[in-house]
């Protein structure tokens, strides 16, 4: 466990819980003196604005923390503000809806009425995402990732790689086991990314357009490539479902 004792001042610490941290967490260093300045920028809440491309940006941020004012995304504090995760999900969803709505309002002024509407906005009238669970084969602890904070498969893949595979100090990772970069999407590594859709079927991630994906995904699983053969056609077996509980 990376502790304050071992880290130099200014480094950040990734924790398991996500809270607001939408894909990973960093606990900012506490100002020992208790001085107000210790927080400053860092205490700011994470927002959707911080994540146009959350994956790659965050990976770079956690490495480059020397001296200069901390990059915005490292201001995430796990579990802060103290809002229950159920409520937090609802808030995040609502904001996604708001921005989707605002986009739609803006778009409507330009676009003709008879143009086919974006299919993703139809589901319950909003973009229905929030935190979804991610499990990885061989890892006991499930994680959660906020899909609305991602804009593409690349982002998502990067976030998941950071979550499960990073080995830098200052990041969590299963250091002993996985040291290769993941490349979840191109089928070249030991693992593939799969998801369970709303019908309960497990599919390979990447086959459908991103926006369609995020409306149909229920949860994710990083699966061993050897197990994933013939996946798209395969339905989830009942005992496998049972095995996943309780999570």
């Amino acid at each position: 466990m990376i502790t304050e004792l071992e880290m130099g001042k200014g480094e950040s610490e990734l924790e398991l819980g996500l809270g607001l941290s939408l894909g990973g967490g960093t606990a900012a260093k506490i100002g020992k003196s208790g001085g107000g300045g210790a927080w400053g920028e860092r205490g700011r809440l994470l927002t959707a604005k911080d994540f146009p491309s959350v994956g790659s940006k965050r990976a770079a941020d956690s490495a480059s923390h020397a001296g200069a004012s901390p990059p915005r995304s490292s201001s995430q504090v796990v579990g802060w503000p103290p809002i229950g995760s159920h409520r937090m999900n609802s808030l995040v969803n609502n904001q996604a809806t708001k921005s989707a709505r605002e986009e739609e309002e803006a778009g409507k002024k330009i676009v003709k009425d008879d143009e086919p509407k974006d299919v993703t906005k139809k589901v319950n009238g909003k973009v229905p995402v929030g935190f979804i669970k991610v499990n990885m084969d061989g890892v006991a602890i499930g994680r959660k990732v906020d899909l609305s904070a991602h804009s593409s498969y690349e982002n998502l893949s990067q976030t998941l790689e950071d979550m499960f595979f990073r080995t830098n100090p200052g990041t969590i990772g299963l250091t002993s086991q996985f040291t290769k970069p993941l490349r979840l999407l191109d089928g070249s590594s030991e693992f593939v990314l799969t998801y369970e859709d709303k019908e309960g079927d497990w599919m390979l991630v990447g086959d459908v357009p991103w926006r369609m994906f995020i409306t149909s995904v229920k949860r994710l699983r990083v699966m061993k490539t050897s197990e994933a053969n013939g996946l798209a056609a395969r339905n989830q077996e009942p005992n496998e479902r049972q095995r996943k509980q309780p999570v």
Partner: protein
Amino acid sequence: MNYFPDEVIEHVFDFVTSHKDRNAISLVCKSWYKIERFSRQKVFIGNCYAINPERLLRRFPCLKSLTLKGKPHFADFNLVPHEWGGFVLPWIEALARSRVGLEELRLKRMVVTDESLELLSRSFVNFKSLVLVSCEGFTTDGLASIAANCRHLRDLDLQENEIDDHRGQWLSCFPDTCTTLVTLNFACLEGETNLVALERLVARSPNLKSLKLNRAVPLDALARLMACAPQIVDLGVGSYENDPDSESYMKLKAAIKKCTSLRSLSGFLEAAPHCLSAFHPICHNLTSLNLSYAAEIHGSHLIKLIQHCKKLQRLWILDSIGDKGLEVVASTCKELQELRVFPSDLLGGGNTAVTEEGLVAISAGCPKLHSILYFCQQMTNAALVTVAKNCPNFIRFRLCILEPNKPDHVTSQPLDEGFGAIVKACKSLRRLSHSGLLTDQVFLYIGMYANQLEMLSIAFAGDTDKGMLYVLNGCKKMKKLEIRDSPFGDTALLADVSKYETMRSLWMSSCEVTLSGCKRLAQKAPWLNVEIINENDNNRMEENGHEGRQKVDKMYLYRTVVGTRMDAPPFVWIL
């Protein structure tokens, strides 16, 4: 009391219902202990690992109602890994084996599986009431078992749980003969709802008093439901997207007018901002209003609604109401006892957020206020001093300034004096959460004045071990202490080990406590479970040569009479 036969004493005990009082009674003498234990029907267990089901049943064989709490409070904020523990299955299995006549089960922060729900539904013929709060691990299949098998089900109350929605037909699993429902709350379910089954169920439940719908129940269904349940007292509206000119809306307005017993309104999980006016006719009866999930309702509509709610005792709202809105609350809701103001906008706060002015206005206008949870952008000592003067009756005071370590925004001083004023004035204060810039001084005040304090949540506060010591030495009634990101270490932790016997639990995360400190504590107090939660590298703490000085990221300790638990996952190390 030697002169009274046991039956008489037992009859007297029947009138004593609070578990605190019952616990006290059982300590008076052996005879009372015996009478009390055989007559006790309701048991509350604040920490499921403090005792085991076998011992519980040995002492209380006539158990009918059980409340169990599992994970520590900070699990709500993702600080506790999912597989930490809190499994209810062993409890249900033991209760089932013992053939006790269980009728009510209330669980909070526990892991519940479909298997446990199925077992529960089949094992207790008279089972009536299931309340699950912040639980996880089950699906709608489990709910289907409960619906199908519990012949006398009265309450099914699901509050903020994580439930895998299999889009099954759990609602249709209630048999046609089931007419006993009083409470049906499934607001937290994310999936589709069988509206036909729901309407038929509500129509055949004449005793239904509390109905809370999920977001999949649209407005026209709501109108029909309210029309066949005009006796409803507590309503959670699901989706509230509507066209004000539609026939459904007209029907809804008509149905609402007939619900003269309606006292509590919540939900609006997806709401169009402009149609709250349909509820204005019944507002004057409302005692409880929860609009904290209705992010799309603008402050002005909230205010218009609240202006009609003169009898309100409980209000949960988003900060989009603004200080001006809180002033309206203060001038309208003179009966207000509990207020919760949640943040609505995570986008860095705008001018819609509330400030210290809103809090002061509420304290000035609502003399009966005793519980508050307030998220805000800024605070001042002066405001807190005024609040303390206006409202010396606080039982629960939770203030969350969104930016950690933020000082008084006018004077740039720590907020020690403000919170000091609160604890000094509020002699009945039982629960406190503070925030903002705080030094050891605030803890000196807490230790000195907060005599009734039972629960304290500390985050990003204090300078030295003295802070924590003030609290441990001063707050004689402390039960739950939870601390994160504060510079308290082994000295404070080890100063008075016997203190932990009087407390339910202590949580410390991202503090200065070391592994060797925790080990020493565990040695001195074998009746404590000292758990180290170490998510990153399971065995690293043991193998590393510097292990003694290594800081512990998360420590959770609690008193227990049953020793180390056997169900801890590998990343939890029990010393």
